[in-house]
């Protein structure tokens, strides 16, 4: 696969497309998260903090995007598309297919030279911002490469700095970790490295599959201290695992990594730091709305589910699947052909089987656009019969992980809402959608188009 961008190239591309703001003014480290969160809340651009206390340049929102409850011009996945080397206006389905590519085909990464160089700075001197005032410096959207003596495994990781040479990280609990394992934490890695890795661990923890690999031809790799790492990582901290599963991460609430899978806390003793010149690192203000980790997990899980559903029955009924960041991944929206009466039940329960994140699914007709969230937010209320099409399971289903209720894991009901036309209905029962095109003949639309400028609207 070609064309995927390094983190640095992604940020530079966002800059050229006016979707990144560089704040030259010095911003205190403890304010970086708040500024990033406010930018997201304002549907603003990604933010690059040029003047901070350390050597890293934090970037917030590089993989995030705007919400679609107030507008549809900007798409939530545009920055992800840019990171994958695509134009920001590509259709959602193309981004999803790119993210899911490792499920369809195993490819090998190119070997390359590590771009980072060894440095004598310690972990504190990197200048990573804290998650919140008074908390230790934090890192986000990291990859932990773990060497078990035979091969390197990549793990999604976030965490904090616990000392000049000590890091504490949250990683998937299912990872085969042992004290003394050689590890390297990479920060500022390509988005494809993150989606590949999250895709692997979501699939592994939610459906038991060992595919796909965390590595593909989308990310060139290099060797460092005997481990395979993304070649263009911005910062790398190499060392070995110390304590596993005994510590807790101080401070802030959990991220989408903890929501998406069972996690463990590990401590890392760092013996060397590498970084590129003026390294850029992503920073996620945890638990704020619309953050990078929500988008990352949401789009990766959407890609995974669409691939799985469309490779399940021998046909491909699902047009698109979205876990909207607006709903913090607690709801799945799927547009699908309804093959026969009752298919919506099969579809919903297949999705529930494949993912533990959500317990609410909204099913839409296949011709519904993925690019316009307002349509689902209309159809859910007007198209689904309030009793017949809101379908609750018996209260024995496993608890979902995104919602904030039944967090003790006690079982309960799931809900799917079918805002689709009943395939048993006669054609004349189906209400035509009113659109500009259906409301006005060609001649009227042409007249309006031709005269519009002369009307003098602002």
């Amino acid at each position, binding site marked *: 696969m070609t064309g995927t961008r390094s983190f640095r190239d992604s940020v530079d591309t966002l800059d050229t497309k006016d979707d990144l*703001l560089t*704040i030259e*003014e010095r911003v205190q480290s403890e304010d970086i*998260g*708040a*500024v990033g969160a*406010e*930018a997201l*809340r*304002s549907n*603003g651009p990604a*933010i690059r903090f040029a003047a901070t206390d350390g050597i890293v340049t934090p970037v917030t929102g590089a993989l995030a995007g705007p*919400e679609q*409850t*107030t*507008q*549809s011009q900007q798409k939530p996945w545009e920055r992800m598309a840019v990171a994958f080397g695509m134009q920001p206006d590509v259709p959602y389905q193309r981004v999803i297919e790119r993210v899911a590519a490792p499920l369809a085909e195993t490819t090998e990464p190119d070997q390359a030279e590590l771009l980072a160089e060894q440095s004598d700075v310690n972990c504190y001197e990197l200048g990573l911002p804290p*998650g*919140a005032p008074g908390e230790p410096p934090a890192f986000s959207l990291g990859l932990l490469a773990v060497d078990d003596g035979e091969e390197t495994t990549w793990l999604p990781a976030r965490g904090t700095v616990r000392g000049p040479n000590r890091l504490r990280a949250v990683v998937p609990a299912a990872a085969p970790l042992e004290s003394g394992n050689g590890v390297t934490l990479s920060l500022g890695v390509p988005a494809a490295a993150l989606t590949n890795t999250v895709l692997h661990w979501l699939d592994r923890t939610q459906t038991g599959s060992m595919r796909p690999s965390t590595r593909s031809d989308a990310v060139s790799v290099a060797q460092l201290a005997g481990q395979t790492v993304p070649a263009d990582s911005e910062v790398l901290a190499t060392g070995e695992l110390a304590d596993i599963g005994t510590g807790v991460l101080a401070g*802030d609430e959990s991220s989408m990594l903890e929501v998406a899978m069972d996690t463990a806390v590990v401590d890392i003793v760092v013996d060397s730091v590498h970084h590129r010149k003026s390294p850029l690192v992503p920073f996620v203000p945890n*638990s*704020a*709305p*619309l953050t990078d980790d929500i988008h990352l997990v949401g789009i990766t899980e959407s890609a995974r589910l669409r691939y799985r559903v469309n490779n399940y029955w021998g046909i491909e009924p699902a047009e698109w699947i979205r876990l*909207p960041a607006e*709903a*913090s991944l*607690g*709801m799945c929206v799927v547009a699908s052909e309804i093959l026969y009466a009752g298919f919506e039940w099969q579809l919903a329960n297949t999705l529930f089987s494949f993912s533990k994140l959500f317990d609410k699914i909204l099913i839409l007709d296949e011709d519904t656009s993925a690019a*316009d969230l*307002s349509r689902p*937010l*209309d159809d859910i*209320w007007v*198209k*689904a*019969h*309030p009793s017949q099409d*809101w379908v*609750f*399971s018996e209260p024995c289903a496993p608890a979902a992980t*995104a919602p*904030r*209720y039944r967090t003790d894991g006690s079982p*309960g*009901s799931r*809900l799917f809402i079918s805002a689709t036309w009943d395939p048993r209905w006669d054609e004349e029962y189906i*209400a035509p*959608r*009113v659109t*500009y095109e*259906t*409301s*006005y003949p060609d001649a*009227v*639309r042409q007249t*309006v188009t031709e*005269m519009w400028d002369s009307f003098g*609207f*602002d």
Partner: protein
Amino acid sequence: MSTDGIGAVDSFREYLDRLSDHGQCNRIEERISWNLEASAVTMRANECDTQIPVFEDVSDTSDSRLVGDPYRGPRRKPWKRIAMALGLADVKTTDGYYEEIIDRVRSPLSPTVIDDDDAPCKDTVRTDDFDLLSFPWPFLHVGDGGRYSNLHTLIAADRDTAWTDWSSHRAMLHDNTRASVLLLAGEQTPNIYYYKYERHDEPMPVAIAIGAEPAVECVSAMWIPTGRDEAEFASGLKREPVELVQCESNDLLVPATAEIILEGRILPNSRLDEGPYGDYFGYMHGPRRSMPVLEIDAITHRDRPYIPFRVEWSEVGYAHNTTSSMEVACVGPDATLGLRAAGFDVEKLAPWPFSPRTVYVISTATSRPDKLHELANFIFTTWGMLHVDFFVFVDEDVDPFNQRAVLEAIALHADPDTDFHQFGAESMPKVPLNIYQTPEEKGDVQMGTSKSKTAKTYIDATRPDGAERRTGGLNMDGERRERAREILETAGIDTERGEPVKTGLGESQ
């Protein structure tokens, strides 16, 4: 007293002038036909969130003018133009607007009755030689059953008391003297017609005020209690008496500055086709239905009258139109007041912007199941609720106008086990203006209610008692958040884009 030193406008055309003064009105002098073109231009204007179009030339045979969705507000503040009409241009926030409207609705004033000679709506009086179709009623969507008057106030007297109800019911024009009027049982005026006049085989005297002053239009959209004088509420809303004048052919009092008054009777046991019609939730719901017949007895109007209209369905999605703006500007504060007056601890009621009159969101300080149940029951039994299937309850620190936050609350806090109520119990009435019932379920509609029942549902998306909102610890600090916004604004970011936020600093918009 207005908050900006300028009072409420006294007429629809004064409202247009005020819009013009603020650069928010586009008077189009070129010929634009009433036949779909005016609607198409209005729809595009709605989508573009631009000025209100006034069509000065729409027909060879009439000098009447059309105005497309005159009360549509800006996308981020849909109440803004109505606020301007009511002399509230200085109000900055939705909360401030709500409280001002609530205060005014609480303070009704007596209207005044003026002589015919002083009433602009009687510039021209036609009691014999009138022709309903001489006016350029707009044809709105190519699939519509006919041409409509759909932005007006229907004035009807109760048969048995002195009460007069003002409401809004669209009318499809049929010929020189007749129209069919959408009367859906369950609402006040339709109930008076179906269960009083028609049962006694009597016609219901009515007047339709087209282009009435904004305060009148607002009250027509509100849920004014039965028996209360709606003109008093309109007067309270504008902080000065509304001027009324008596009809030519019946005893009804009508707004004296209205552009056109259609006087007539809604006949008993007489029906004409109504619809199809591109309705407010984005689908063309058929089939044609039989609705009561309005027989016109007289028409009075101002010189070169303006006929306002709304392009329904254009508010579905991200655009606003008159319907969705009036839902926010009129129904929202009025219903909030009504619920508070009934003793419920309600912060705010907000219509869902993507599908008006189908779901409302209520922020409340209580999450007690019995309180929410009582609140839901109260709401669902009020008039107009045959339209509404859903209510969503959120915590008082969740802005019900912040759809992302509401969606998140439903996704993360509404447990399918315990928080979705009344699903499955198909025991409630429903208007046939829906797309989820089959024609057989809707039945042969005679009174505007479906043959089949439906379910009314409320969703408790509040957090458990004591649970804090999870929006990131760093964002709950008002001082830090304000500093962050200052940094962004200094760097050129408009922090009022995107979602409104309530985190102790008040609304961002």
